[in-house]
């Protein structure tokens, strides 16, 4: 067809059948794996996978015991949860300031967003631990929670703002027309409807937070990544441990992402009714 020959259009790729492309893909994966194993072999890496399970869980004389990595995961989840709660609260305040008519409040919120979003997370962590830490007598755990909370509050506030903004403006007008105050209108009319726009990206944000929580290992806060570093320092099993830790993160995030995707799907169909 002549119309498909527009310049700058996508280049037609040779199309393969489904089975052929899967085969090609598997071949490539095998090739990369073989190269990696070969490389590890060449550097004389001593695989010790049999030692890994004890870091996940163990059966001793005292019965079942969680291993160090499992306990580290628990610490990661606790740290993430506390940071997320802080991020939600702070994010709500920032979003409210952003949406208000207060000139000063608006400026503060905007400055907060610009600063936090445009700093590398690692630098923010150093600021909290090495600068604010001594000034306000924060221990490393408090600095870590505050840093993660503040960093994600910026992202959460934008999600909140977008969620509230996606509720039809007529809803607020209708609420006002029956005499509701702004607070009543948001609480009873706007926020319940915004929930369906908020839940999927919030779940994604929770996953993002769990991933970024790994960074606090650089200030030696105890969580899964720190645990991994410590084990490797003792055992030199860097390949096995990092593979394992990566797999655990992957599993946790995948579960969250699946939940988010399911929610998104459910609300995508339910949200269309007027």
């Amino acid at each position: 067809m002549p119309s498909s020959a527009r310049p700058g259009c996508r280049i037609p790729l040779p199309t393969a059948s489904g089975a052929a492309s899967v085969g090609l893909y598997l071949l490539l994966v095998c090739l990369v794996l073989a190269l990696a194993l070969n490389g590890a072999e060449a550097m004389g890496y001593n695989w010790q996978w049999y030692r890994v399970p004890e870091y996940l869980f163990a059966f001793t004389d005292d019965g079942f015991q969680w291993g160090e990595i499992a306990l580290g995961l628990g610490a990661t989840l606790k740290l993430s949860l506390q940071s997320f709660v802080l991020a939600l609260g702070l994010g709500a305040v920032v979003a409210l300031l952003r949406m208000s008519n207060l000139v000063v409040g608006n400026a503060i919120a905007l400055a907060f967003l610009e600063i936090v979003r445009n700093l590398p997370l690692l630098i923010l962590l150093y600021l909290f631990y090495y600068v604010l830490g001594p000034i306000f007598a924060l221990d490393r755990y408090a600095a870590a929670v505050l840093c993660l909370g503040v960093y994600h509050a910026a992202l959460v506030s934008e999600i909140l703002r977008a969620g509230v903004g996606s509720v039809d403006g007529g809803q607020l007008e209708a609420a006002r027309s029956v005499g509701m105050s702004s607070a009543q209108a948001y609480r009873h009319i706007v926020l319940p409807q915004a929930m369906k726009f908020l839940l999927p990206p919030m779940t994604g944000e929770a996953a993002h937070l769990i991933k970024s929580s790994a960074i606090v290992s650089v200030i030696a806060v105890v969580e899964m990544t720190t645990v991994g570093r410590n084990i490797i320092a003792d055992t030199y099993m860097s390949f096995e441990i990092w593979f394992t830790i990566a797999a655990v993160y992957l599993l946790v995030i995948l579960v969250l992402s699946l939940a988010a995707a399911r929610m998104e799907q459910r609300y995508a169909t339910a949200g269309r009714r007027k």
Partner: protein
Amino acid sequence: MADCDPVIELRNVDKFYGDFQALANVSMRLAPSERVVICGPSGSGKSTLVRCVNRLEEHSAGRIFVGGEELGAGKTNIRWVRMKVGMVFQQFNLFPHLSVLENLTIGPIRVRKLAKSRAIELAREYLARVDILDQAEKYPAQLSGGQQQRVAIARALCMEPSVMLFDEPTSALDPEMINEVLAVMADLAQSGMAMICVTHEMGFARRVADRMIFMDGGEIIESAPAERFFSHPQSERCRRFLDQVLER
């Protein structure tokens, strides 16, 4: 009728959106039980006028009085005015996450502070009046457009307002549903409710309106008793508009 204290009064009201003037020196009075229908081409300021009356839009100049209270003198006064003024929107704007009954009771419970049982009683009374009592437990999305608009009317009535504003209440409806909504509005007019109605339904206007207002370019071009308005429109612009909408 014109001698009573007006329910709504506008004196020389202007409204600007930036440089655009949506209302230009608009003055009108609405007496108790009076039915006024506003017509005019789109963009003529009809909706803006209605929305200024319950302060969904703030007027730029002039004065607006509702029930003797002037708009713009503090926040509590605005909420009081909105309780006195029922509003029906073109797009219904029902609360989709609440059932029909909850749509009707949320205002009386949260704003008028009625007991829940009393609010439900009131809601059922008005649902019966708009002939939709059997749908009370359904959600807005399960109703037809005409039914939704009737629910919206009942929702406004539950606040027991002293005047109703209608902003093109049938414009978003499929043709076969327009009449059921107009019937409810006519019935309401019959009961002595004061109303300002923006609509293109000239048949309805002829039957119901005491007075007709024709707007164009943000100005009131013509304001006359309905009878005279339809038989002897004074201005050329109004005559042309009527010729078009009435297809005579």
